[in-house]
């Protein structure tokens, strides 16, 4: 088995349980083998391409969440603005949590203020 991520495995296992999906069922919908789903639920980190494929097969899965759990950088275009800023703030160890929350609240405010309005 290649790289392992407990977080990634937990997310896959949780997703399958919530949706009452067996490895075989997930394999049928995604075109990825049942054995591979089993490995992923045990924490095996797949390639970026496989993550994209399973997210295409199951739209309720957040590709960026899975990418982060697997140790890949998120795709900024597909990330919600608040999450994108939250991600950017991870690289700011000098900013206390309180400050990060203030910024995220502000981003939400701006987003809500202009929601539905087009330039």
């Amino acid at each position, binding site marked *: 088995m290649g790289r392992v991520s407990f977080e990634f495995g937990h997310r896959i296992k949780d997703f399958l349980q919530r949706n009452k999906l067996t490895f075989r069922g997930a394999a049928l919908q995604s075109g990825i083998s049942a054995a591979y789903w089993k490995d992923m639920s045990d924490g095996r980190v797949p390639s970026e391409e496989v993550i994209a494929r399973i997210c295409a097969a199951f739209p309720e899965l957040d590709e960026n969440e899975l990418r982060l759990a697997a140790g890949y950088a998120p795709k*900024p275009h597909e990330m919600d603005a608040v999450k994108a800023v939250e991600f950017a703030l991870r690289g700011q160890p000098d*900013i206390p949590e309180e400050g990060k929350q203030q910024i995220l609240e502000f*981003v939400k405010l701006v987003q809500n203020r*202009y929601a539905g309005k087009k330039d």
Partner: protein
Amino acid sequence: MNNLHFESEAELFAYKAWRTLSLEPPVNLDKIASKLNLVIEYREFIPEIDGFYLRLPNCPPVIAINASYVKPQERRRFTLAHEIGHHLLARRISNSERLFFLDTPRNRRTVLERACDRFAALLLMPEELVRRYFQELEANSKNRVAIMASRFGVSTWAMRRRIKELGLTIQPWQRS
């Protein structure tokens, strides 16, 4: 985009702003922001945050400035000018792209951050006027920096730095 490119663009933008907007010291930053369709928000944040620039799809670009009492007016002005620099230097990036630049007292080390600082310094304290005031106040060398800082609406620290940058000689820093 290299260091030199950012630096020269920053200088060009500051020069253009003075040329086209008939500016006078202290520079009216709200006027510049309004011309650029920027939304300025003054809010209280923790002291570790000076301000930030945020651009989201379908929203006007927003500059947030920390209005906390621990940030003096001059400091806020410099931060605002710096954030306007971010807006101008990022203008080639598509409007559909999200942008977020956070400015803290500690993170002014990258090429882009230095270019934005340069833009802010040139916008707030243009060379021609700095040299003119410096000469005019020659007889009052003791208070020269403070008077100039007040005229430009900047801190005495920023004023000193700009004067030194232009190769002008001032008295060493003295605590009053």
